[in-house]
Protein backbone atom coordinates (compact mmCIF):
# COMPACT_ATOMS: atom_id res chain seq x y z
CA UNK A 1 0.00 0.00 0.00
CA UNK A 2 1.46 3.36 -0.98
CA UNK A 3 1.98 5.90 1.78
CA UNK A 4 2.86 9.52 2.24
CA UNK A 5 5.45 11.09 4.57
CA UNK A 6 4.76 14.67 5.53
CA UNK A 7 7.38 17.09 6.91
CA UNK A 8 5.33 20.06 8.05
CA UNK A 9 6.51 22.69 8.53
CA UNK A 10 10.11 22.64 7.35
CA UNK A 11 12.24 24.34 9.99
CA UNK A 12 15.07 26.86 9.72
CA UNK A 13 13.71 28.41 6.55
CA UNK A 14 12.36 31.91 6.08
CA UNK A 15 8.62 31.30 5.93
CA UNK A 16 6.38 28.27 6.11
CA UNK A 17 6.47 25.13 3.98
CA UNK A 18 6.04 21.40 4.18
CA UNK A 19 7.47 18.41 2.39
CA UNK A 20 5.52 15.33 1.40
CA UNK A 21 7.23 12.13 0.41
CA UNK A 22 5.10 9.62 -1.47
CA UNK A 23 6.11 6.00 -0.97
CA UNK A 24 5.28 3.15 -3.29
CA UNK A 25 4.05 -0.26 -2.13
CA UNK A 26 7.60 -1.40 -1.37
CA UNK A 27 8.29 1.65 0.79
CA UNK A 28 10.58 3.37 -1.72
CA UNK A 29 10.15 7.10 -2.40
CA UNK A 30 8.43 7.58 -5.74
CA UNK A 31 7.62 11.31 -5.61
CA UNK A 32 8.48 14.34 -3.48
CA UNK A 33 6.82 17.73 -3.25
CA UNK A 34 7.93 20.95 -1.63
CA UNK A 35 4.72 22.82 -0.80
CA UNK A 36 4.45 26.49 -0.02
CA UNK A 37 1.13 26.79 1.68
CA UNK A 38 0.49 30.45 2.32
CA UNK A 39 -0.01 33.47 0.11
CA UNK A 40 0.07 37.19 0.79
CA UNK A 41 0.03 38.52 -2.75
CA UNK A 42 1.92 41.83 -2.86
CA UNK A 43 1.51 42.02 -6.64
CA UNK A 44 -2.23 42.38 -6.22
CA UNK A 45 -2.62 44.75 -3.32
CA UNK A 46 -0.12 47.30 -4.63
CA UNK A 47 -2.41 47.97 -7.60
CA UNK A 48 -3.69 51.53 -7.37
CA UNK A 49 -0.72 52.80 -5.33
CA UNK A 50 1.51 55.61 -6.60
CA UNK A 51 4.51 54.15 -8.39
CA UNK A 52 7.07 56.09 -6.33
CA UNK A 53 5.76 54.44 -3.16
CA UNK A 54 6.67 51.03 -4.57
CA UNK A 55 10.28 50.68 -3.34
CA UNK A 56 9.25 51.19 0.26
CA UNK A 57 6.11 49.03 -0.08
CA UNK A 58 8.00 46.23 -1.82
CA UNK A 59 10.78 46.20 0.76
CA UNK A 60 8.11 45.05 3.21
CA UNK A 61 7.86 41.73 1.37
CA UNK A 62 10.74 40.42 3.41
CA UNK A 63 12.58 41.23 6.63
CA UNK A 64 15.69 39.33 5.53
CA UNK A 65 16.29 40.84 2.11
CA UNK A 66 14.29 44.11 2.12
CA UNK A 67 17.24 45.86 0.49
CA UNK A 68 17.07 43.62 -2.59
CA UNK A 69 13.39 44.41 -3.12
CA UNK A 70 14.06 48.08 -2.42
CA UNK A 71 16.77 48.14 -5.07
CA UNK A 72 14.96 46.11 -7.75
CA UNK A 73 11.86 48.23 -7.19
CA UNK A 74 13.78 51.54 -7.34
CA UNK A 75 15.41 50.37 -10.58
CA UNK A 76 11.95 49.65 -11.97
CA UNK A 77 10.91 53.18 -11.02
CA UNK A 78 14.11 54.58 -12.64
CA UNK A 79 12.95 52.87 -15.83
CA UNK A 80 9.50 54.47 -15.51
CA UNK A 81 11.13 57.88 -15.00
CA UNK A 82 13.46 57.03 -17.92
CA UNK A 83 16.44 58.52 -16.09
CA UNK A 84 20.06 57.52 -15.86
CA UNK A 85 20.87 57.87 -12.17
CA UNK A 86 24.12 59.55 -10.97
CA UNK A 87 27.13 57.22 -10.81
CA UNK A 88 27.57 57.83 -7.08
CA UNK A 89 23.94 56.86 -6.44
CA UNK A 90 24.43 53.62 -8.37
CA UNK A 91 27.59 52.82 -6.42
CA UNK A 92 25.94 53.60 -3.08
CA UNK A 93 23.07 51.28 -3.99
CA UNK A 94 25.70 48.72 -5.01
CA UNK A 95 27.39 48.95 -1.59
CA UNK A 96 24.06 48.49 0.16
CA UNK A 97 23.16 45.48 -1.97
CA UNK A 98 26.53 43.85 -1.22
CA UNK A 99 26.05 44.53 2.49
CA UNK A 100 22.65 42.89 2.22
CA UNK A 101 24.17 39.84 0.55
CA UNK A 102 26.83 39.61 3.29
CA UNK A 103 24.34 39.75 6.15
CA UNK A 104 21.86 37.39 4.49
CA UNK A 105 24.55 34.84 3.57
CA UNK A 106 25.90 35.03 7.13
CA UNK A 107 22.40 34.33 8.45
CA UNK A 108 22.00 31.37 6.09
CA UNK A 109 25.43 29.85 6.63
CA UNK A 110 26.04 30.43 10.32
CA UNK A 111 22.58 30.66 11.87
CA UNK A 112 20.60 28.20 9.74
CA UNK A 113 23.01 25.69 8.21
CA UNK A 114 26.16 25.59 10.36
CA UNK A 115 24.34 23.47 13.00
CA UNK A 116 24.02 20.69 10.38
CA UNK A 117 27.59 21.15 9.20
CA UNK A 118 29.24 21.43 12.58
CA UNK A 119 27.14 19.21 14.83
CA UNK A 120 26.12 16.67 12.18
CA UNK A 121 22.86 15.76 10.46
CA UNK A 122 22.16 13.12 13.14
CA UNK A 123 22.70 15.43 16.12
CA UNK A 124 19.94 15.91 18.69
CA UNK A 125 17.58 18.48 17.13
CA UNK A 126 17.37 20.20 20.53
CA UNK A 127 21.04 21.08 20.21
CA UNK A 128 21.26 21.38 16.44
CA UNK A 129 20.90 25.16 16.40
CA UNK A 130 23.05 28.25 16.72
CA UNK A 131 23.20 27.89 20.51
CA UNK A 132 24.66 24.42 20.01
CA UNK A 133 27.20 25.87 17.59
CA UNK A 134 28.07 28.64 20.03
CA UNK A 135 28.66 26.07 22.78
CA UNK A 136 30.69 23.65 20.60
CA UNK A 137 32.60 26.13 18.48
CA UNK A 138 32.36 29.64 19.95
CA UNK A 139 34.94 31.11 17.55
CA UNK A 140 32.82 30.12 14.52
CA UNK A 141 29.65 31.50 16.11
CA UNK A 142 31.54 34.68 16.96
CA UNK A 143 32.60 35.09 13.34
CA UNK A 144 29.05 34.42 12.12
CA UNK A 145 27.51 36.97 14.45
CA UNK A 146 30.28 39.45 13.56
CA UNK A 147 29.84 39.06 9.80
CA UNK A 148 26.09 39.49 10.00
CA UNK A 149 26.56 42.58 12.14
CA UNK A 150 29.10 43.95 9.64
CA UNK A 151 26.56 43.76 6.82
CA UNK A 152 23.75 45.14 8.94
CA UNK A 153 25.85 48.03 10.23
CA UNK A 154 26.61 49.10 6.65
CA UNK A 155 22.92 49.02 5.78
CA UNK A 156 22.21 51.07 8.89
CA UNK A 157 25.05 53.53 8.15
CA UNK A 158 23.68 54.15 4.67
CA UNK A 159 19.95 53.87 5.19
CA UNK A 160 19.47 54.91 8.81
CA UNK A 161 18.05 51.54 9.87
CA UNK A 162 18.98 47.93 9.25
CA UNK A 163 15.59 46.50 8.35
CA UNK A 164 13.36 48.27 5.81
CA UNK A 165 15.52 51.36 5.22
CA UNK A 166 13.76 53.89 2.99
CA UNK A 167 16.96 55.46 1.64
CA UNK A 168 16.91 54.00 -1.87
CA UNK A 169 14.42 56.07 -3.90
CA UNK A 170 13.37 56.35 -7.55
CA UNK A 171 16.16 58.27 -9.30
CA UNK A 172 18.92 57.44 -6.82
CA UNK A 173 19.29 57.62 -3.06
CA UNK A 174 17.83 60.06 -0.55
CA UNK A 175 21.07 61.27 1.05
CA UNK A 176 24.77 61.27 0.20
CA UNK A 177 27.30 59.34 2.26
CA UNK A 178 29.35 61.32 4.81
CA UNK A 179 33.10 60.84 5.20
CA UNK A 180 32.58 59.87 8.82
CA UNK A 181 30.19 57.04 7.91
CA UNK A 182 32.41 55.84 5.09
CA UNK A 183 35.40 55.70 7.45
CA UNK A 184 33.36 53.80 10.02
CA UNK A 185 32.52 51.15 7.42
CA UNK A 186 36.10 50.95 6.18
CA UNK A 187 37.37 50.48 9.74
CA UNK A 188 35.39 47.24 10.02
CA UNK A 189 36.78 45.68 6.83
CA UNK A 190 40.02 44.03 8.08
CA UNK A 191 38.17 42.18 10.84
CA UNK A 192 35.37 41.11 8.48
CA UNK A 193 37.93 39.76 6.00
CA UNK A 194 39.65 37.76 8.76
CA UNK A 195 36.31 36.34 9.90
CA UNK A 196 35.28 35.08 6.46
CA UNK A 197 38.77 33.78 5.64
CA UNK A 198 38.82 31.77 8.90
CA UNK A 199 35.41 30.34 8.08
CA UNK A 200 36.41 29.45 4.53
CA UNK A 201 39.52 27.66 5.82
CA UNK A 202 37.40 25.71 8.31
CA UNK A 203 34.75 24.87 5.73
CA UNK A 204 37.31 23.59 3.21
CA UNK A 205 38.82 21.33 5.88
CA UNK A 206 35.36 20.00 6.75
CA UNK A 207 34.04 19.44 3.26
CA UNK A 208 35.61 15.99 2.91
CA UNK A 209 33.33 14.61 5.63
CA UNK A 210 30.23 15.52 3.61
CA UNK A 211 31.08 13.44 0.55
CA UNK A 212 27.76 11.57 0.64
CA UNK A 213 25.73 14.77 1.05
CA UNK A 214 27.65 16.44 -1.78
CA UNK A 215 26.80 13.47 -4.00
CA UNK A 216 23.08 13.40 -3.13
CA UNK A 217 22.01 16.97 -2.27
CA UNK A 218 20.37 18.21 -5.48
CA UNK A 219 23.41 17.13 -7.46
CA UNK A 220 22.27 17.01 -11.09
CA UNK A 221 22.76 18.79 -14.40
CA UNK A 222 20.87 22.06 -14.83
CA UNK A 223 21.30 25.47 -16.37
CA UNK A 224 22.48 28.40 -14.24
CA UNK A 225 21.24 31.99 -14.50
CA UNK A 226 22.39 35.34 -13.12
CA UNK A 227 23.63 38.84 -13.83
CA UNK A 228 27.22 39.51 -14.90
CA UNK A 229 29.18 42.71 -15.47
CA UNK A 230 30.37 43.85 -18.92
CA UNK A 231 33.47 41.62 -18.70
CA UNK A 232 31.67 38.63 -17.24
CA UNK A 233 32.60 39.53 -13.65
CA UNK A 234 30.40 38.94 -10.58
CA UNK A 235 27.84 41.77 -10.50
CA UNK A 236 24.89 41.94 -8.15
CA UNK A 237 23.44 45.40 -8.66
CA UNK A 238 23.26 45.84 -12.41
CA UNK A 239 24.53 44.15 -15.57
CA UNK A 240 23.19 41.71 -18.11
CA UNK A 241 21.93 38.16 -17.77
CA UNK A 242 24.06 35.14 -18.58
CA UNK A 243 22.86 31.54 -18.84
CA UNK A 244 25.27 28.62 -18.74
CA UNK A 245 24.59 24.92 -19.16
CA UNK A 246 25.66 21.93 -17.08
CA UNK A 247 29.09 21.65 -18.71
CA UNK A 248 29.75 25.32 -18.33
CA UNK A 249 28.71 25.93 -21.93
CA UNK A 250 27.48 29.44 -22.65
CA UNK A 251 23.81 29.39 -23.70
CA UNK A 252 23.15 33.15 -23.61
CA UNK A 253 25.32 36.10 -22.70
CA UNK A 254 24.72 39.81 -22.20
CA UNK A 255 20.97 39.30 -22.41
CA UNK A 256 19.12 42.51 -21.68
CA UNK A 257 17.09 41.92 -18.48
CA UNK A 258 14.34 44.08 -20.02
CA UNK A 259 13.63 41.10 -22.29
CA UNK A 260 13.16 38.61 -19.44
CA UNK A 261 9.62 37.72 -20.52
CA UNK A 262 10.91 36.42 -23.86
CA UNK A 263 12.95 33.69 -22.23
CA UNK A 264 11.43 33.08 -18.80
CA UNK A 265 8.00 31.46 -18.57
CA UNK A 266 6.11 30.37 -15.44
CA UNK A 267 3.85 27.39 -14.74
CA UNK A 268 1.69 26.69 -11.68
CA UNK A 269 0.92 23.47 -9.82
CA UNK A 270 -2.24 22.94 -7.74
CA UNK A 271 -0.31 21.79 -4.64
CA UNK A 272 1.76 24.92 -4.05
CA UNK A 273 1.44 28.71 -4.22
CA UNK A 274 4.97 29.07 -5.53
CA UNK A 275 5.15 29.19 -9.34
CA UNK A 276 7.74 27.34 -11.42
CA UNK A 277 9.73 29.61 -13.73
CA UNK A 278 11.52 27.90 -16.65
CA UNK A 279 13.70 28.78 -19.62
CA UNK A 280 11.17 29.12 -22.44
CA UNK A 281 13.25 27.83 -25.38
CA UNK A 282 13.75 24.49 -23.56
CA UNK A 283 10.08 24.15 -22.52
CA UNK A 284 8.65 23.71 -19.02
CA UNK A 285 9.72 20.06 -18.78
CA UNK A 286 13.43 20.54 -19.46
CA UNK A 287 13.95 24.27 -19.00
CA UNK A 288 14.85 24.31 -15.33
CA UNK A 289 17.77 26.29 -14.04
CA UNK A 290 19.27 27.36 -10.75
CA UNK A 291 20.00 30.88 -9.49
CA UNK A 292 21.80 32.25 -6.42
CA UNK A 293 25.36 31.92 -5.13
CA UNK A 294 26.12 28.54 -6.77
CA UNK A 295 24.70 29.71 -10.11
CA UNK A 296 26.50 33.05 -9.96
CA UNK A 297 29.87 31.40 -9.36
CA UNK A 298 29.14 28.96 -12.18
CA UNK A 299 28.28 31.65 -14.72
CA UNK A 300 30.88 34.35 -14.03
CA UNK A 301 34.21 34.58 -15.81
CA UNK A 302 35.76 35.91 -12.58
CA UNK A 303 34.67 37.48 -9.30
CA UNK A 304 36.75 40.57 -10.03
CA UNK A 305 38.44 40.91 -6.61
CA UNK A 306 41.79 39.38 -5.66
CA UNK A 307 41.00 37.05 -2.79
CA UNK A 308 37.61 35.97 -4.09
CA UNK A 309 39.18 35.05 -7.43
CA UNK A 310 41.72 32.86 -5.65
CA UNK A 311 38.88 31.10 -3.85
CA UNK A 312 36.87 30.82 -7.07
CA UNK A 313 39.72 28.90 -8.70
CA UNK A 314 39.61 26.34 -5.85
CA UNK A 315 35.82 26.23 -5.90
CA UNK A 316 35.80 25.31 -9.56
CA UNK A 317 37.81 22.20 -8.81
CA UNK A 318 34.59 20.82 -7.26
CA UNK A 319 33.06 20.24 -10.69
CA UNK A 320 33.81 19.75 -14.34
CA UNK A 321 32.58 22.73 -16.29
CA UNK A 322 30.00 23.65 -13.67
CA UNK A 323 29.75 22.75 -9.97
CA UNK A 324 26.51 20.75 -9.87
CA UNK A 325 25.92 19.79 -6.24
CA UNK A 326 23.65 22.20 -4.39
CA UNK A 327 25.59 21.36 -1.23
CA UNK A 328 28.15 23.82 -2.61
CA UNK A 329 25.71 26.71 -2.26
CA UNK A 330 27.23 26.91 1.24
CA UNK A 331 30.75 27.21 -0.16
CA UNK A 332 29.63 29.74 -2.77
CA UNK A 333 27.98 31.86 -0.06
CA UNK A 334 31.27 32.19 1.81
CA UNK A 335 33.11 33.22 -1.37
CA UNK A 336 30.42 35.79 -2.10
CA UNK A 337 30.78 37.21 1.41
CA UNK A 338 34.52 37.56 0.75
CA UNK A 339 33.86 39.20 -2.63
CA UNK A 340 31.30 41.55 -1.08
CA UNK A 341 33.72 42.80 1.56
CA UNK A 342 36.50 43.34 -0.97
CA UNK A 343 34.19 45.08 -3.42
CA UNK A 344 32.74 47.38 -0.76
CA UNK A 345 36.29 48.42 0.16
CA UNK A 346 37.03 49.22 -3.51
CA UNK A 347 33.84 51.22 -3.96
CA UNK A 348 34.37 53.23 -0.79
CA UNK A 349 38.00 53.97 -1.69
CA UNK A 350 36.83 56.09 -4.63
CA UNK A 351 36.51 59.73 -3.41
CA UNK A 352 33.51 60.20 -5.73
CA UNK A 353 31.50 58.00 -3.38
CA UNK A 354 31.05 61.14 -1.20
CA UNK A 355 29.59 63.20 -4.06
CA UNK A 356 26.45 65.14 -3.17
CA UNK A 357 24.98 64.38 -6.59
CA UNK A 358 22.94 61.31 -5.71
CA UNK A 359 19.52 61.76 -7.26
CA UNK A 360 17.99 62.37 -10.67
CA UNK A 361 14.54 63.97 -10.57
CA UNK A 362 11.93 63.48 -13.29
CA UNK A 363 8.27 62.87 -13.90
CA UNK A 364 7.20 59.50 -15.28
CA UNK A 365 8.21 59.24 -18.92
CA UNK A 366 7.21 55.63 -19.53
CA UNK A 367 4.16 53.57 -18.66
CA UNK A 368 6.13 50.46 -17.92
CA UNK A 369 9.39 49.57 -16.18
CA UNK A 370 11.50 46.52 -15.40
CA UNK A 371 14.19 46.37 -12.70
CA UNK A 372 16.53 43.43 -12.15
CA UNK A 373 19.15 42.90 -9.45
CA UNK A 374 20.81 39.93 -7.77
CA UNK A 375 19.31 39.26 -4.36
CA UNK A 376 21.23 37.02 -1.93
CA UNK A 377 19.23 34.02 -3.20
CA UNK A 378 19.42 34.90 -6.89
CA UNK A 379 18.02 36.97 -9.71
CA UNK A 380 15.17 39.25 -8.66
CA UNK A 381 12.85 40.74 -11.28
CA UNK A 382 10.33 43.54 -10.65
CA UNK A 383 8.04 44.69 -13.47
CA UNK A 384 5.34 47.40 -13.14
CA UNK A 385 2.84 49.20 -15.36
CA UNK A 386 1.27 52.57 -14.49
CA UNK A 387 -1.63 54.69 -15.72
CA UNK A 388 -1.72 58.41 -16.62
CA UNK A 389 -1.85 59.35 -12.95
CA UNK A 390 1.23 57.31 -12.10
CA UNK A 391 -0.84 54.68 -10.29
CA UNK A 392 0.20 51.04 -10.50
CA UNK A 393 -2.14 49.04 -12.75
CA UNK A 394 -0.17 45.78 -12.86
CA UNK A 395 2.88 44.29 -11.17
CA UNK A 396 4.81 41.08 -11.65
CA UNK A 397 7.65 39.82 -9.49
CA UNK A 398 9.89 36.84 -10.19
CA UNK A 399 11.76 36.04 -7.01
CA UNK A 400 15.00 34.14 -6.55
CA UNK A 401 13.39 31.35 -4.56
CA UNK A 402 10.83 30.89 -7.34
CA UNK A 403 13.53 30.40 -9.99
CA UNK A 404 14.91 27.56 -7.86
CA UNK A 405 11.53 25.90 -7.32
CA UNK A 406 11.97 23.12 -9.90
CA UNK A 407 15.50 22.41 -8.73
CA UNK A 408 14.42 22.27 -5.08
CA UNK A 409 11.68 19.74 -5.88
CA UNK A 410 14.06 17.55 -7.86
CA UNK A 411 16.63 17.94 -5.11
CA UNK A 412 14.41 16.64 -2.31
CA UNK A 413 13.37 13.72 -4.50
CA UNK A 414 17.02 12.82 -5.08
CA UNK A 415 17.90 13.06 -1.39
CA UNK A 416 14.72 11.29 -0.22
CA UNK A 417 15.36 8.38 -2.58
CA UNK A 418 18.83 8.05 -1.13
CA UNK A 419 18.11 8.51 2.57
CA UNK A 420 14.46 7.56 3.21
CA UNK A 421 13.12 4.06 2.96
CA UNK A 422 9.97 2.37 4.24
CA UNK A 423 9.15 2.26 7.92
CA UNK A 424 12.65 2.99 9.21
CA UNK A 425 12.35 6.73 9.22
CA UNK A 426 14.88 8.45 11.47
CA UNK A 427 15.26 12.07 12.47
CA UNK A 428 18.60 12.18 10.65
CA UNK A 429 17.06 10.96 7.37
CA UNK A 430 14.38 13.61 7.43
CA UNK A 431 16.82 16.28 8.49
CA UNK A 432 18.89 15.53 5.39
CA UNK A 433 15.83 16.02 3.21
CA UNK A 434 15.24 19.36 4.89
CA UNK A 435 18.91 20.24 4.67
CA UNK A 436 18.73 19.95 0.89
CA UNK A 437 16.14 22.71 0.91
CA UNK A 438 18.29 24.76 3.27
CA UNK A 439 21.22 24.68 0.81
CA UNK A 440 19.03 26.81 -1.48
CA UNK A 441 18.20 29.06 1.51
CA UNK A 442 14.71 29.65 0.14
CA UNK A 443 12.91 32.73 1.32
CA UNK A 444 9.26 31.79 1.31
CA UNK A 445 8.34 35.21 2.65
CA UNK A 446 9.67 36.57 -0.62
CA UNK A 447 8.26 34.02 -2.98
CA UNK A 448 4.75 33.92 -1.59
CA UNK A 449 5.04 36.23 1.40
CA UNK A 450 4.29 33.68 4.10
CA UNK A 451 5.23 34.57 7.66
CA UNK A 452 5.87 32.48 10.72
CA UNK A 453 7.70 29.50 12.10
CA UNK A 454 6.33 26.48 13.89
CA UNK A 455 7.62 23.21 15.27
CA UNK A 456 8.03 20.45 12.73
CA UNK A 457 5.55 17.64 12.26
CA UNK A 458 6.41 14.53 10.27
CA UNK A 459 3.57 12.24 9.33
CA UNK A 460 3.45 8.94 7.53
CA UNK A 461 0.00 8.64 6.05
CA UNK A 462 -1.48 5.59 4.32
CA UNK A 463 -3.16 6.01 0.96
CA UNK A 464 -6.55 5.64 2.65
CA UNK A 465 -5.72 8.60 4.90
CA UNK A 466 -4.95 6.76 8.14
CA UNK A 467 -1.96 7.97 10.09
CA UNK A 468 0.71 5.28 10.20
CA UNK A 469 3.41 7.20 12.03
CA UNK A 470 4.01 10.65 13.45
CA UNK A 471 7.20 12.39 14.47
CA UNK A 472 6.93 15.75 16.19
CA UNK A 473 9.71 18.24 16.82
CA UNK A 474 9.29 21.17 19.19
Amino acid at each position, binding site marked *: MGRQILIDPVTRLEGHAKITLHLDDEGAVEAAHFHVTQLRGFEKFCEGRRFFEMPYLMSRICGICPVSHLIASAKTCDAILAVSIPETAANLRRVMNLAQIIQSHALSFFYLSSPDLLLGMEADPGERN*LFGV*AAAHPAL*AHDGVGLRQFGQQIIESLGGRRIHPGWVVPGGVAEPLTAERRDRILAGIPEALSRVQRTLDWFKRTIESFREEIRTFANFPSMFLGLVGPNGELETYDGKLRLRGETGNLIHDQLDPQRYAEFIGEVSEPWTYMKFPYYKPAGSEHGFYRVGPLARLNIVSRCGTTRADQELAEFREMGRGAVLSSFHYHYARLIEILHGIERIEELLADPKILSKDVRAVAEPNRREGIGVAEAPRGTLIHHYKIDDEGLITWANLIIATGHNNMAMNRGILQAARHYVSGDQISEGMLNRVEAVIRTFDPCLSCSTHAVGQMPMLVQVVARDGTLVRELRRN
Partner: protein
Amino acid sequence: MAKIFVIGIGNEYARDDAAGLLVARGVKKQPHEGVEVLEQSGEGGKLMESWKGADAAIVIDAARCGGAPGTLHRFDAGREPLPAEFFRGSTHAFGLYEGLEVARSLDQLPRRLIVYVVEGRDFAAGIGLSAELEGAIPAVVAAVTREICEIQDGASLEAQSNTR
Protein backbone atom coordinates in the same frame (compact mmCIF):
# COMPACT_ATOMS: atom_id res chain seq x y z
CA MET B 1 27.95 55.18 38.69
CA ALA B 2 26.79 52.07 36.80
CA LYS B 3 26.12 52.50 33.10
CA ILE B 4 22.61 51.18 32.45
CA PHE B 5 20.86 50.75 29.11
CA VAL B 6 17.08 50.60 29.10
CA ILE B 7 15.98 48.98 25.83
CA GLY B 8 12.32 49.00 24.86
CA ILE B 9 11.58 46.68 21.97
CA GLY B 10 8.56 46.30 19.74
CA ASN B 11 6.68 47.49 16.71
CA GLU B 12 4.61 50.63 16.93
CA TYR B 13 2.31 49.42 14.17
CA ALA B 14 1.39 46.08 15.72
CA ARG B 15 -0.82 47.35 18.54
CA ASP B 16 0.24 45.83 21.90
CA ASP B 17 3.68 45.05 20.49
CA ALA B 18 4.39 48.77 20.98
CA ALA B 19 4.30 48.40 24.79
CA GLY B 20 8.10 48.07 25.16
CA LEU B 21 8.64 51.26 23.17
CA LEU B 22 6.08 53.19 25.23
CA VAL B 23 7.66 52.04 28.49
CA ALA B 24 11.06 53.24 27.20
CA ARG B 25 9.54 56.63 26.40
CA GLY B 26 8.00 56.76 29.88
CA VAL B 27 11.37 56.05 31.50
CA LYS B 28 13.04 58.67 29.33
CA LYS B 29 10.70 61.37 30.67
CA GLN B 30 12.46 61.20 34.04
CA PRO B 31 16.19 61.33 33.21
CA HIS B 32 18.46 59.25 35.45
CA GLU B 33 22.20 59.71 35.62
CA GLY B 34 24.11 56.94 33.83
CA VAL B 35 21.03 55.67 32.04
CA GLU B 36 20.61 55.58 28.29
CA VAL B 37 17.19 54.74 26.86
CA LEU B 38 16.93 52.99 23.47
CA GLU B 39 14.05 51.87 21.25
CA GLN B 40 14.53 48.87 18.99
CA SER B 41 12.70 46.40 16.80
CA GLY B 42 13.95 43.41 18.81
CA GLU B 43 16.33 42.03 16.16
CA GLY B 44 18.71 39.82 18.12
CA GLY B 45 21.95 40.91 16.47
CA LYS B 46 21.23 44.58 17.13
CA LEU B 47 20.41 43.82 20.77
CA MET B 48 23.72 42.03 21.17
CA GLU B 49 25.49 45.15 19.96
CA SER B 50 23.35 47.51 22.01
CA TRP B 51 24.27 46.26 25.44
CA LYS B 52 28.00 46.18 24.68
CA GLY B 53 29.81 48.31 27.25
CA ALA B 54 26.86 48.45 29.65
CA ASP B 55 27.17 47.38 33.29
CA ALA B 56 23.50 46.53 33.25
CA ALA B 57 20.65 46.39 30.74
CA ILE B 58 16.92 46.37 31.30
CA VAL B 59 14.93 45.10 28.30
CA ILE B 60 11.17 45.54 28.01
CA ASP B 61 9.11 43.54 25.52
CA ALA B 62 5.50 42.55 24.98
CA ALA B 63 4.52 38.93 24.35
CA ARG B 64 1.55 36.62 24.45
CA CYS B 65 2.21 33.82 26.90
CA GLY B 66 -1.20 32.66 28.09
CA GLY B 67 -1.64 35.03 31.04
CA ALA B 68 -4.07 37.91 31.48
CA PRO B 69 -3.27 40.93 29.27
CA GLY B 70 -1.28 43.46 31.26
CA THR B 71 0.41 40.86 33.50
CA LEU B 72 4.05 41.75 34.09
CA HIS B 73 6.82 39.13 34.25
CA ARG B 74 10.36 39.88 35.43
CA PHE B 75 13.32 37.66 34.50
CA ASP B 76 16.85 37.89 35.81
CA ALA B 77 18.10 36.86 32.36
CA GLY B 78 21.76 37.32 33.27
CA ARG B 79 21.42 34.40 35.68
CA GLU B 80 19.14 32.01 33.83
CA PRO B 81 17.71 31.53 30.33
CA LEU B 82 14.37 33.08 29.46
CA PRO B 83 11.49 30.63 29.09
CA ALA B 84 11.52 29.85 25.35
CA GLU B 85 7.73 29.52 25.17
CA PHE B 86 7.38 33.28 25.76
CA PHE B 87 9.25 34.07 22.57
CA ARG B 88 7.93 31.71 19.92
CA GLY B 89 6.85 32.96 16.54
CA SER B 90 9.53 35.54 15.84
CA THR B 91 9.28 36.02 12.07
CA HIS B 92 12.98 35.99 11.41
CA ALA B 93 14.06 33.40 13.93
CA PHE B 94 16.57 35.69 15.62
CA GLY B 95 14.91 37.88 18.18
CA LEU B 96 15.37 38.72 21.84
CA TYR B 97 15.48 35.11 23.01
CA GLU B 98 17.98 33.99 20.38
CA GLY B 99 20.17 37.10 20.69
CA LEU B 100 20.26 36.72 24.44
CA GLU B 101 21.13 33.03 24.44
CA VAL B 102 23.81 33.38 21.76
CA ALA B 103 25.29 36.31 23.69
CA ARG B 104 25.29 34.12 26.82
CA SER B 105 27.14 31.33 24.98
CA LEU B 106 29.68 33.81 23.66
CA ASP B 107 30.06 35.52 27.03
CA GLN B 108 28.75 38.81 25.69
CA LEU B 109 26.03 39.55 28.24
CA PRO B 110 26.24 42.62 30.45
CA ARG B 111 26.94 41.90 34.11
CA ARG B 112 23.28 42.40 34.93
CA LEU B 113 20.43 41.80 32.49
CA ILE B 114 16.81 42.11 33.52
CA VAL B 115 13.99 41.40 31.07
CA TYR B 116 10.46 42.64 31.67
CA VAL B 117 7.75 40.99 29.59
CA VAL B 118 4.27 42.44 29.63
CA GLU B 119 1.47 40.22 28.36
CA GLY B 120 -0.38 41.68 25.39
CA ARG B 121 -3.74 40.78 23.91
CA ASP B 122 -3.79 42.20 20.38
CA PHE B 123 -0.75 42.02 18.09
CA ALA B 124 -2.61 42.69 14.83
CA ALA B 125 -1.54 45.46 12.45
CA GLY B 126 -2.65 48.86 13.71
CA ILE B 127 -1.84 51.72 16.04
CA GLY B 128 -2.82 51.93 19.71
CA LEU B 129 -2.65 49.58 22.67
CA SER B 130 -5.54 47.50 23.93
CA ALA B 131 -7.20 48.97 27.03
CA GLU B 132 -5.54 46.46 29.37
CA LEU B 133 -2.07 47.36 28.13
CA GLU B 134 -2.76 51.08 28.15
CA GLY B 135 -3.57 50.80 31.83
CA ALA B 136 -0.52 48.66 32.59
CA ILE B 137 2.15 50.96 31.14
CA PRO B 138 2.58 53.32 34.15
CA ALA B 139 3.16 50.34 36.47
CA VAL B 140 5.81 48.93 34.13
CA VAL B 141 7.52 52.34 33.93
CA ALA B 142 7.51 52.46 37.74
CA ALA B 143 8.94 48.94 37.98
CA VAL B 144 11.75 49.77 35.55
CA THR B 145 12.49 53.00 37.41
CA ARG B 146 12.73 51.08 40.71
CA GLU B 147 15.03 48.59 39.02
CA ILE B 148 17.30 51.42 37.84
CA CYS B 149 17.48 52.83 41.38
CA GLU B 150 18.26 49.42 42.87
CA ILE B 151 21.03 48.78 40.36
CA GLN B 152 22.52 52.24 40.96
CA ASP B 153 22.26 51.80 44.78
CA GLY B 154 23.87 48.36 44.52
CA ALA B 155 26.67 49.75 42.36
CA SER B 156 27.29 52.60 44.74
CA LEU B 157 27.38 50.23 47.76
CA GLU B 158 29.80 48.03 45.84
CA ALA B 159 31.98 51.04 45.03
CA GLN B 160 31.97 52.10 48.70
CA SER B 161 32.96 48.66 49.92
CA ASN B 162 35.76 48.55 47.34
CA THR B 163 37.19 51.85 48.56
CA ARG B 164 37.14 50.79 52.21
